[in-house]
Structures are given as structure tokens and as C-alpha cells.
């Protein structure tokens, strides 16, 4: 929720730019770490958080004489992604060497794909805040190895090198410069984030760096044919940072241009503490990477049969799932979008619905409402909550069969969340079963009428608004358990005399 608030704030900035006749142009390069067990060119494990350099073998260390061998699983995952965005899968792709010196780059080059990436043009459709749909082009997606990490903390005057991450497989997803605001960029990034987790090819953990992006940002006069000079903001690892960094950068560039300055093509770094971007290196000082095909690796040749076999394993993707929820369950676009944003939540919803057997909207409300709110409050994953699909379905079923009211259900849910008990157990234990016995409700009504002769007289003389007062009093008398519909009907009759 805080995220949306920030978005709303910053939207003002976008509008300000637009008012002054500026248009923002954004392209993203998303790096998603592929969820393979071993590295892309060696047998070392890829698990996060091991002691420094305990997951780096001779290949990762770039020892003399060692050679890379491609991990077939990384190829399969890249193909999954390509198929999911409707892209052309290259029948022949080539690994190239990107040459530069850095202490955390053991070989002095990064193995990446340059001229012939494994995934060619594709696209994703994102839904913007106003419900508008927008197609974002994806130029390419290629496989590459990650570098290691330089460590400075706790090493005064020294640089430590941790090569555990060196050789971890990445897919770099390069978008077209199709986004026109930070909000569009976030919508696109979230869409990719959802997609890679649906496909099971990336855990999406942004704190651990499994999903991060570089943003290319430029501005131009509205209506201009040419793009403005862009700055590349490196290594953004949260949606919030992406949004803040882009908005800061847009403002910086507009201010610069309006004061007669020029934007320099350069790499910038976002400082989350100060909320600003800073120059890292200009294009003039940039490396000439001297890309050339890696002679240690053969071209990756993909047979159509292989690609089709991968296609057959693709799960139902978020857009298709959302469309099905709208079509078959009668949910709104918005609800379907929220439910399908996470594969786990969507599956949970479908599980609940199947158990209840009816009332998809009610099921959806419970999953998106209290259930999701409690997950967020306690920072839990779907599977970790004490309320599982069977329990939630039990609760919804008691609403459907009128055993409890929706209002009481919220109280019951909270008890279920804490104790892990079933809805029925909580209902019995707390005596929350709804009163549907006409006699009992009538007795309560009579008692209330007897206690409030003044209000009764006023009502009968035309003060209709007092009806609510009587409903409240009867509900109070029954401990909230009276069936609301029955109560309404009986009360009307009695009050009428």
C-alpha cells in the first residue's frame, strides 16, 4: 500500500514534466537470476548466503586451463521465458566474451550473448493504474554469467572478493524504450517479476539481488522525433528505488535542459539514502568491451522439437489465468489481476473456490481481503499461514449457508489465523452460530420494543430513520448473531404493529 502512495505522490512529478512539454522515455534492462541448482558454466552450487568463496570452483576462479561448459537447464529456462513473452527463439545463439578488468571478474571477461541472443523480439502487455492496457516491446533476452562481489565492510583499506556469485546464470531482459513514466516502468517490471516466478525460472528475491534492473532514462520535448540523451541508472533492486530513481533522474534532466545545460550520456548510481542519482562514469571513460564470440563454447543450436517440448511444459500464464477468472468466474478485471499477480495466490484462490463450490466473488474477496492483509501484516508466504485453503473454504461455506454473517466471519477468521482451528470449531467454541430461529429473533424484538416505548412511538408517527436504531438494538441483544435478512423482515412487521 505504501508503494501505491509513493506512486501517487510521484505521479505529480510526471504531470509537472508533461505540463512543461517534456516527455519521459524509459527502457529497462532487467537481470533475473535463473533458479538453476548449479552455475551456468560450472558445477558449483548457486545457493545464496554461503560463506565467501565456498561456492567457487576452479572454473569460477578462472584458473589457468579451465573451460566453461554450458548448463542445459539455464538454456531451458531462457526458452521458457522467450515462449512466455511470445518471442522468437533463436535456433542458433552465440556466447561472446565481454572483456574488461575488474577484481570480481576472475577471467577478465564476462561470458554473455551479444549479437545473437537466445531470445529475440517479444512483448508484454501491462495494465496501468487507470486500467489502460499498454504493450511494452522486449528487444531481446540473453543468457550471461554474473560477476562476483567486492566486499569492503569490515576490511579497512582492503577489498575482499567473494566469488560465490561469479558464474550464476542470469537472463538479461532488454525492453524497448516504450515506457513514458516511472509508473509504467514499475508496471512493466512487476509484470516481468510475476512472469518469471510463474515460470519457476527465478525466485524473484530482490533483496538478495535475484531480480534487479538498470533503467535507461531520457527526456525530450513532447512531439520531438528524436530521443534525448539518456543516462543509465545501474543496479536498482527494489520497485520503490526504481520509481524514485527514475523520478529523480527525470527532474534532474529537465532542470538541466531548462537551464540551458546538456544531458551527458553516462552511467549513474542511485543512492537510496539521499534519494538521488550520482554519476559513476561518463561514456568517454567507458570500457570498450571488445566483444567477440567465445571460442570455448559452441553455438547453442535449438531444434524446433526442443522448443515445442519446453512449450508443452509452460504453466498457465498470468494473463491467460486472469482472462479465465473473468470469463468463467465472473470476476472483475481488477480482481482477476490482483489474484493472478502471484501464482501462489491464484492457486490458493482456485483451491478455496473448488472446495466451496460456488460464490467465486465471495471467495475472491476473502483471498484478496482479510487473507492477503494478514499475510502482509505477518510477512508470511501463502503456504506458511495457519489458515490453509480448506480452512478458508470452511469459513466461506458457513457464510454461504448462512450459519454466520459476513461480519461475524471476520472475527472468526482472526481466531482461525491465530489458532489454526477450523471455522466450525471456532463457531462452536465461541457460540457464534447465527440465530435463524424466528421465535428467538421475535422474542428479542419484543424485548427491545418494550424497553424503548418512546422510540417506538416516534417511529410509528413517521420517523422511519429509527429503523436502524431498532436493528442495532436487536443485534446487540443477540450478540450480533441474528440473521440480518430475517431480522429485517420480522422487525418491519412488528414495528408496523
Amino acid at each position, binding site marked *: 500500500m505504501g508503494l501505491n502512495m509513493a506512486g501517487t505522490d510521484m505521479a505529480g512529478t510526471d504531470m509537472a514534466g508533461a505540463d512543461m512539454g517534456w516527455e519521459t522515455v524509459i527502457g529497462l534492462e532487467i537481470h533475473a537470476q535463473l533458479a538453476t541448482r548449479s552455475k551456468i558454466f560450472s558445477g558449483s552450487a548457486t545457493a545464496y548466503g554461503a560463506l565467501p568463496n565456498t561456492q567457487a570452483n*576452479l572454473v569460477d576462479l578462472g584458473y589457468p586451463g579451465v573451460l566453461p*561448459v554450458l548448463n542445459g537447464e539455464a538454456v531451458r529456462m531462457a526458452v521458457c521465458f522467450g515462449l512466455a513473452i511470445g518471442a522468437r527463439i533463436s535456433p542458433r545463439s552465440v556466447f561472446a566474451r565481454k572483456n574488461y578488468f575488474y577484481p570480481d571478474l576472475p577471467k577478465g571477461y564476462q561470458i554473455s550473448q551479444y549479437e545473437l541472443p537466445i531470445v529475440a523480439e517479444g512483448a508484454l502487455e501491462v495494465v496501468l493504474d487507470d486500467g489502460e492496457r499498454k504493450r511494452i516491446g522486449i528487444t531481446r533476452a540473453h543468457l550471461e554469467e554474473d560477476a562476483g562481489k567486492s566486499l569492503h565492510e569490515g576490511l579497512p583499506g582492503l577489498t575482499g572478493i567473494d566469488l560465490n556469485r561469479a558464474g550464476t546464470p542470469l537472463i538479461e531482459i532488454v525492453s524497448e524504450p516504450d515506457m513514458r513514466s516511472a509508473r509504467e516502468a514499475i508496471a512493466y517490471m512487476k509484470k516481468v517479476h510475476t512472469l518469471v516466478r510463474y515460470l519457476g525460472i527465478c525466485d524473484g528475491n530482490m533483496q538478495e539481488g535475484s531480480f534487479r534492473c538498470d533503467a535507461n532514462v531520457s527526456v525530450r520535448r513532447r512531439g520531438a522525433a528524436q530521443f534525448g540523451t539518456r543516462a543509465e541508472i545501474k543496479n536498482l533492486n527494489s520497485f520503490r528505488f526504481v520509481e524514485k530513481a527514475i523520478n529523480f533522474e527525470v527532474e534532474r534532466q529537465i532542470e538541466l535542459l531548462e537551464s540551458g545545460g546538456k544531458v551527458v550520456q553516462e552511467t549513474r548510481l542511485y543512492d537510496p539514502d539521499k534519494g538521488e542519482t550520482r554519476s559513476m562514469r561518463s561514456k568517454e571513460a567507458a570500457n570498450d568491451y*571488445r566483444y567477440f564470440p567465445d571460442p*570455448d563454447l559452441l553455438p547453442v543450436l535449438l531444434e524446433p522439437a526442443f522448443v515445442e517440448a519446453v512449450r508443452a511444459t509452460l504453466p498457465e500464464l498470468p494473463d491467460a489465468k486472469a482472462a479465465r477468472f473473468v470469463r468463467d468466474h465472473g470476476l472483475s478485471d481488477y480482481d482477476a489481476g490482483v489474484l493472478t499477480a502471484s501464482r501462489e495466490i491464484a492457486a490458493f484462490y482456485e483451491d478455496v473456490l473448488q472446495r466451496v463450490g460456488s460464490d467465486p466473488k465471495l471467495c475472491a474477496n476473502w483471498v484478496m481481503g482479510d487473507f492477503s492483509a494478514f499475510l502482509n501484516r505477518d510477512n508470511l508466504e501463502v503456504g506458511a499461514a495457519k489458515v490453509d485453503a480448506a480452512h478458508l473454504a470452511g469459513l466461506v461455506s458457513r457464510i454461504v449457508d448462512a450459519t454466520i454473517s459476513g461480519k461475524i466471519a471476520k472475527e472468526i477468521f482472526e481466531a482461525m489465523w491465530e489458532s489454526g482451528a477450523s471455522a466450525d470449531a471456532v463457531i462452536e467454541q465461541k457460540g457464534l452460530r447465527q440465530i435463524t430461529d424466528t421465535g428467538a429473533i421475535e422474542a428479542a424484538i419484543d424485548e427491545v420494543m418494550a424497553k424503548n416505548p418512546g422510540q417506538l412511538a416516534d417511529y410509528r408517527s413517521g420517523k422511519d430513520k429509527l429503523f436502524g436504531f431498532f436493528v442495532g438494538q436487536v443485534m446487540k441483544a443477540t450478540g450480533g448473531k441474528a440473521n440480518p435478512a430475517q431480522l429485517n423482515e420480522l422487525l418491519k412487521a412488528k414495528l408496523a404493529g
Partner: protein
Amino acid sequence: MSALPPLPAPTVAGLARGLHRGEYSSVELTRACLERIAAGQPELNAFVTVTAEGALSAAQAADDARAAGRAGPLTGVPIAHKDIFCTEGVRTTCGSKMLAEFVSPYDATVVAGLKAAGTVMLGKLNMDEFAMGSSNETSFFGPVRNPWDPALVPGGSSGGSAAAVAARLVPAATATDTGGSIRQPAALCGVTGIKPTYGRASRYGMIAFASSLDQAGLITVSAEDAALLLGPMSGFDPRDSTSVDSPVPDYMATLGDSLEGLTIGVVREFFDKGLDGGCEQRIREAIAVYERLGAKVREVSCPNLPLSVPTYYVVAPAECSSNLARFDGVRFGHRCDSPRNLTDLYSRSRGEGFGAEVKRRIMTGTYVLSAGYFDAYYLKAQRVRQLISADFARAFADCDLLLGPTSPTTAFAIGAKCDDPITMYLNDIYTIGANLAGLPAMSLPCGFAGGLPVGLQLIGPHFSEGRMLNVAHRYQQETDWHLRAPSAWA
């Protein structure tokens, strides 16, 4: 040197027979080699490291295996490895100051294969620094000298391998060939050298110079010895994606096949100019030997072959500039004293660790890959490389093997070409084509010019090692050039 006892037999085949018959033990044979190595070292400088202790214990293990009835055809045969192959627990210098103290934590696949076959490693052989050179003068450990005349170079880069086999210090040695580094020193030292098809033997553990050209092979006295040793060092290696997954034939089985019906193509471009007259005469005589053996000989043309030297000197430096980037002073190898900062660490560690020829090639390679030059140099060179491959493919439509000289001249004086890299590079004019096309090739001793050995080169289609060894072996049955040793080392 006359006091030096000769090895009991000049060839691996002969020594293997002696071991098998119990005429001597592997320990005795290994001692004899170690003695010759120690005697040869001051003059020839063929070795960088001699592993006497390890050799004797491996020899003992081989003798034990034989006693237990577990001996194979190569059990107990001593050999030595070019110092480009990583050897576990033994320093692997690649002829460079950069790796002067580097001890490899693992064995190269080729080393492991020959070890598994029972061979005994005597030590590590001198070479041009990172295999860059044609004279063995670029080694950090000093030049190797030619056993036929110590004032002359042995050729390179596998100069230590060629000199050690020529002086009969070891019966056989591994070597590598990127542009002629097995065949040219074999020719200049009067021994047999084979560079197999690219991908036949694994490159894992062989320190990379130019990955698309580097190939492990052998320097031996005879083609038969090469046939014996090639099998165990060849084959698919899951750790080298460029090694080829096709079965290794039994090279011994076809060694004696008849040459009737064989068509040999004599490559016209190899005789155009620059070929020493004495050398040409020996090659013509070798052709006559083949005709006597029943082979048909015809002239063929590979018109793009003269472009092989400039093509090679773009492709090989480009790859080397990238391959040698890992020597940065951070994780292994030479590190400068008290670096002031990262750039200082890089530039001084590399500046101090690499010799002049290596630096020249790194700079050339960096240049040809640079933005703005890549198309004009690297891409164009790759296109020419394809034309050269196509020339060979056309030639093999009409003949089974190609024949020509290995080197334009016999061995030259140490220091004669050091100041002129272009002249030095032209030494490989006949050998580079096979590397660019990935073809197997051999050099065989075919006589002498001015008292110095001349090499005959055979080039075959991909994976024709069996036929090529057969053709070489039949020649060596007709001639005894390969059995000639320098008198000082006989």
C-alpha cells in the same frame, strides 16, 4: 657426452617391448632418462622442472602393476609434458615469469589420460612463453638449444619437447600446436610430430593461447610411437565443449595398411617462394618414396593459403588478449610488490609478469578487437579463415592427404630473428593453414640439408589421424631419417 649411456631402445615401441619382456624395469629405465636429462640440461635447457622423485615412485608403481599382471602397453614408459599442461602438485609455468611459481591443483585431461595409461612423468618441458614463438627464445626460463647444433634454435613453441626427444633424453613428449608449434620444432630437430584434428584431444588443463586453434599432440621418434600414445590422450571430455564426441579409433590397427590407391596432393603454394632449395630437394625425394610405395601424386592448389599468416596474426592475438586477461595478479601468478591501487596492481603485475612477445600479441589482439577495428581485422580474418578451410575441403575432394614442407628453412641461429617478428612469423607459413582449418597434420624427418634435419609435412582431412599415421609409418619403414640422432646424443 659419449660417456652417457644410451636408452635401451630409441622408441616408445621398443622400450615398451623391453619392459614387457622384463629386460629392464621402469625404475631402471626412468633412472636412465633422468641421467640423460641431468646431463643434457646445462647445454639444451629442455626442461623447466624435472620431477625425479615423482617419476621414480610412478615407475615403481608401474613395476608393481606389471608384477601384479596389471600392465598395459604403455605401463612404465617414461615421457615428459610440455609445461603448458597443468599437472597436479607440480608447478606449471607456461614458460612465463607470470606462472613461475604456479602449482596447479589439478591434472590436464591429456596428462590424466596418459597417466592412466601407465606412463611415467619425468618433468615439464621448456617452451616459448605462453606458446608464443617459433624459436623457444621467448621462454622466461631461457632459450632451448637444438641438439644438432647448440648455436641453433630448436624451433617453437614446443622447443623443449622437440629437443628432449631429438637428444633422446625422453622417448616421447606431449606438445601443443596453435600455428605450427609441434610440427615446426619437430622438423627443426629431426623428430616426428603430430597435431591431431581440433577437438580430438581435450583442451581442459592446457593453458589457453588461442582457443580456436590450440590443439594437444605429441613429439615422438616415430609415427608408430605417436600411434601408441595418441589414443590414451584423445577423446571426448565433458569438461571441454569443443572436444569432439566421436570414438577414438585403434591407430595401431591400421598402421601397416597398404598405400596402394592412396592419392597424395602436393600443395603448389608450398613451393612458390621462400622455400630453401635444400629443403625442397628433400621433399621431392620423399614424394618419390611415396610413388614407389604405390601412392598417386598430383599437384593441388590452395590459393588462399598464402593469406594464412596475416589471418593467424589477427585471430590468435585476438583470442590471446582475452585468454591472458585472467593473469591479473589477484588470485594466482605473479603479483607486483606493494601495489598502490588496483590499476597499479594490474599494470605492474602484468608488466613484470609477461615478456615482450606476449605483450606484443596482447596489444595486437586488443587492437584488432577494438571498436572501429573489429570489422576490418577480426571479422575479415574470420572470413579469410573460411576461405582457407574451403580451399582445403576442395583439395580433399581430389586427394586423401596433402604433402609439403613443414618449414621454409632448417634451424636458424639463436638470436637471428629475435628483432624481426615478421620474419619470425613467416616460419609458420606452411603450418598455420592446418590450424585455421582445424585439420590434423604431421611432420616427419625426411633427410638433411646442410647437415640439419628437414621436415616433411602431411595434412589430412578432419579425423584422418589413423590414415595419416599409417602413411607416415610406411614412409618410416622405407627410410631411417627418424632414427638418426645427433651424434653428441646418440
